[in-house]
């Protein structure tokens, strides 16, 4: 539901229909996430942005976008040419997608959502060790609930992936809240 509403908000923002894949929700080990990144990255020159969020307990989102999305998206959003850099646009995009989806999820569940500014983990030419940066060996968690959605914009060959990574605590809390929501 939140995803559909997020798509609708984004469509309003971009002035284009936003196609969303059916959200894929799974629990992944860190190892599995590593190989997922390794499988996706060679498919194209991707920018990777991460953004921490706080919804009762913390989580992080990862937005993966093709390197060429920046310019057409800036145009769609009404920014003048040269007004935003590629880096700025990608961060804005990550923030918008996260804001749209998590904002809607927070609204549905009646929970306030807080955001920390997104950071660019790597641009298209700095793809070495992305998996290790995203999922460092030193991190305490071993498994994470991952919600994966692919966004496509009508009439544009733009694909974006959004992963929401939730800690075990957050997943447990979310399960309880969703169960209560449907009761």
């Amino acid at each position, binding site marked *: 539901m939140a995803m559909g509403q997020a798509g609708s*908000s*984004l469509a*309003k*923002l971009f002035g284009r229909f936003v196609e969303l894949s059916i959200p894929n929700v799974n629990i992944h*080990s*860190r*190892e599995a996430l*590593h190989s997922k990144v*390794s499988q996706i990255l060679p498919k194209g020159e991707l920018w990777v942005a991460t953004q921490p969020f706080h919804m009762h307990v913390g989580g992080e989102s990862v937005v993966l976008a093709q390197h060429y999305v920046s310019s057409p998206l800036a145009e769609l*959003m*009404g*920014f*003048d040419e040269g*007004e*935003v*850099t590629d*880096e*700025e646009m990608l*961060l*804005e995009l990550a*923030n*918008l997608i*996260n*804001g*749209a989806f*998590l*904002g809607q999820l927070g*609204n549905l569940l009646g929970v306030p959502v807080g*955001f920390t*500014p*997104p950071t660019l983990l790597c641009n298209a030419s700095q793809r*070495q*060790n992305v*998996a*290790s940066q995203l*999922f*460092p*060996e030193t991190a305490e968690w071993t498994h994470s609930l991952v919600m994966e959605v692919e966004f496509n914009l009508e009439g544009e060959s733009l694909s974006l992936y959004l992963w929401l990574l939730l800690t075990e605590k957050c997943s447990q809390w979310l399960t309880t809240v969703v169960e209560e929501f449907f009761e």
Partner: protein
Amino acid sequence: MNTLSEGSNYLRLTDSVWESMVDQLNQGVLVVDDKLRVLFWNRFLEQSSSMKRGQVLGRELSALFPEIPTNWLKRKIANVFCLGSYSFASWRQRPYVFPFPSPRPLTGDCQYMRQDVTFFPLFDAEKDVMAVSITLTDRTEECLREEELQRLNNALSRSNEELDKFASLASHDLKAPLRTIDSFAGILESEYSHLLDPEGRLYFQHLQAGARRMQTMIDGILSLSRVQTKVLEPTDVDLNEVCQNVLLDLSETVQESGGRIIFDDMPTVVGELSLLRQLLMNLVGNGLKYRSAERAPEVSVRAFQDQTSWTVEVEDNGIGIESRFHQKIFGLFERLHSVEEFSGTGIGLALCLKIVERHQGQLWVESEPGEGSIFSFRIPRG
């Protein structure tokens, strides 16, 4: 009036107290409506902009600050209204949204205050966005520190590059006169050695051995320099193939020593083929070289993985190393034995360390005297 309800720890503050608190924040706080008209302006902003609240309320933000790109600002505010979510502008991408003077006008060498700016929605009772609050955090200090760090890093990189260039040039230039010494020494030996007495011939041998040793050291410095400057082109490297090559290259040594090299099933890793080959060649070669007089050398190579990396172990049954030398041996020209005991230049392990570091990995040794050694390196899985 500020009230603390009976039985409650929640202090209900009046608007004027809230305002006073926001005024005392070390952050800029303003509120604008969908037409960018200023609805609130705190004291931090008054001080930074030299514009009093009365001067700005009701006026359009872009008219107050024509330096801020109007369209960009409108888009930012519109996005917050549209999605009801946050938006950010970091000083890393957009250092000065508001053209405020530096908080360190005398000691900081920057003209403007670097800022992080956050835009967030303010909702009305119907949960519709009624206004956008903009907060501004001064990041000038952080930025100055980062710039200083960057300056030092650049200086260090330049210094390293110059050192590499120097090592490479010096090694090349040293090789030419050394070749001359070596070749004339050869001529002298073949044509005039009969004129020398035994002591003279011994001196002569020392001269030739010294020249060859220097040649080996220069080659080592050149190799090290090449490892440092080589542009890496990582590919999938099958370590089974690499190990087979190493085995082939060392077959003579293995035969002479009566020893053996054992390879487990090795993985395919991501790295630079030539460097990984050199790395395994040096580590396995050392395992054969520093052998115990009491037993034939045996070197085992194996690999295992964890979630993020591959670890390769090269274990030998050689003379072992005291723990106090476990770090030292990786230093350039560091040797624990005389040339008479074991030949070498003290470059091999320094080269190994450099190769592993260039693969973003770690290299270490576990060893005890007389108990053999395990040299291990760990590199990311790619």
